């Protein structure tokens, strides 16, 4: 019988991590991630979490500690946000390259400058090329469940990569929600102890990430790319196991909402999907055939699932809570590149929305749907992303 509690999103994540029995936790506090690692520090101090909790002087060191601990054969965890994730970046590329399967919570927050502590996806999106697997969650419940899956996916012998669970700062980390918790025996049966083939051992010295010249470097990078892409089948299988355990539907790398017969499909990641679903319900009542496809697994990019889910729409409007400055939003670019050249695919439009905590409310969703319909009927696709609710009057 599941234990049901109303908890803060951060507490739900800390309890998920605790249930996964990490041996090493290292973290440096940064808003809005702090409550997660505070809770884990408290559990460790109280003796409820039997882990080495390493207090470090920076996020670079936090990532380095979990990287080394993972190489030593320990199940390891860290969390960060925003600037902290950027400071971890160098270590995360190296960790993926060395195939070290720790789990990291990427609490989404804007990137400076200007300084801002509210939610957008710029921080974790900037790590999309690192070789770290990324999931984006919509609720505290999904954050809890995905952390259980994250360790199992990371440690899968055919994958062996860091996994980042991305959750929106404040909106998910600091809200209280009803969360169902699995009992420890169930988690233990789902997630066996971490037993890597290679681990640091003084009696059998090995080198991780050894020197590779141009004659083999491409093959090493391709091996990571292949492990991540071929890992999709393992991710689907582990999500399906999680569905069986929890009774909650984690059947896919994407989640479709009223999208089967939709002419206009919105694509989004993270907590804004909740608002979009409400807006869709209203628009449906007005007779508009609108749906949502939410990307749960962003790296590896689930293009097979997206082609299936988007293929019948007339127009796809992507809400990107990030921007590749000088280009477009990352998700829009990904979808356009994967649909390109396939016959009968819908027009794809990219919208930059919700940067720095700018609210993506139902009126913003309506604007995007209206705009997408207008562009569709005009037959003139826009060549660059539109910034929703931008106030051009104050732009110098």
């Amino acid at each position, binding site marked *: 019988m599941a234990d049901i509690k109303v908890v803060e999103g951060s507490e739900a994540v800390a309890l998920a991590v605790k249930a996964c029995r990490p041996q090493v936790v290292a973290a440096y506090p940064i808003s809005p991630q702090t409550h997660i690692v505070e809770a884990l520090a408290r559990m460790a101090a109280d003796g409820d979490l039997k882990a080495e909790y390493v207090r470090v002087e920076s996020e670079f060191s936090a990532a380095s500690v979990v990287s080394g601990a993972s190489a030593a054969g320990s199940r390891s965890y860290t969390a960060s946000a925003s600037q902290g994730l950027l400071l971890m970046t160098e270590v995360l590329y190296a960790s993926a390259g060395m195939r070290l399967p720790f789990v990291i919570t990427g609490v989404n927050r804007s990137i400076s400058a200007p300084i801002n502590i509210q939610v957008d996806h710029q921080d974790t999106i900037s790590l999309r090329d690192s070789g770290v697997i990324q999931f984006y969650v919509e609720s505290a419940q999904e954050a809890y469940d995905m952390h259980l899956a994250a360790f199992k996916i990371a440690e899968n012998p055919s994958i062996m990569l860091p996994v980042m669970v991305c959750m929106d700062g404040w909106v998910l980390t600091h809200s209280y929600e009803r969360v169902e918790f699995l009992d420890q025996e169930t988690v233990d049966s789902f997630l066996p102890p971490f037993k890597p083939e290679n681990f640091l051992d003084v009696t059998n010295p090995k080198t991780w990430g050894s020197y*590779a010249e141009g004659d083999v470097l491409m093959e090493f990078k391709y091996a990571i790319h292949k492990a991540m892409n071929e890992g999709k089948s393992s991710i689907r299988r582990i999500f399906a196991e999680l569905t069986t355990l929890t009774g909650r539907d984690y059947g896919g790398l994407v989640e479709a909402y009223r999208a089967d017969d939709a002419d206009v499909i919105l694509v989004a990641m993270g907590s804004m999907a909740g608002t979009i679903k409400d807006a869709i319900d209203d628009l449906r009542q007005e007779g508009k055939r609108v749906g949502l496809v939410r990307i749960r697994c962003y790296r590896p990019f689930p293009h097979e699932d997206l082609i299936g889910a988007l293929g019948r729409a007339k127009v796809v409007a992507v809400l990107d809570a990030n921007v590749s400055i000088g280009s477009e939003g990352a998700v829009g670019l990904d979808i356009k590149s994967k649909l390109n050249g396939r016959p009968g695919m819908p027009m794809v439009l990219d919208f930059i929305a919700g940067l720095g905590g700018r609210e993506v409310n139902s009126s913003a969703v309506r604007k995007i749907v209206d705009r997408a319909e207008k562009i569709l009927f005009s037959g003139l696709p826009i060549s660059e992303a539109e910034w929703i609710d931008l106030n051009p009057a104050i732009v110098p």
Partner: protein
Amino acid sequence: MKITPGAVVKGGTSLNYKTGSWRDQRPEIDQETCKQCGICQEVCPDDAVRQSGDRYEIDYDFCKGCGICAHECTAEAISMKNEEK
């Protein structure tokens, strides 16, 4: 031979890479001036100074020619010479 995931290999394989070929300047020890203090060996970042009896000698297989030994030598016994082919 297949590459290994994570580039994990047995330890010590750096000995197979003769990084001395990167060098464009070579340190030379004047054994007459050398006081055998061993500072050159302590400061070498590539562990490329060997002790042989009471002499210190450069291991040119691994010396990259950074010049730290010459800079730190208190007896000024080490000079840097251009490598020529």
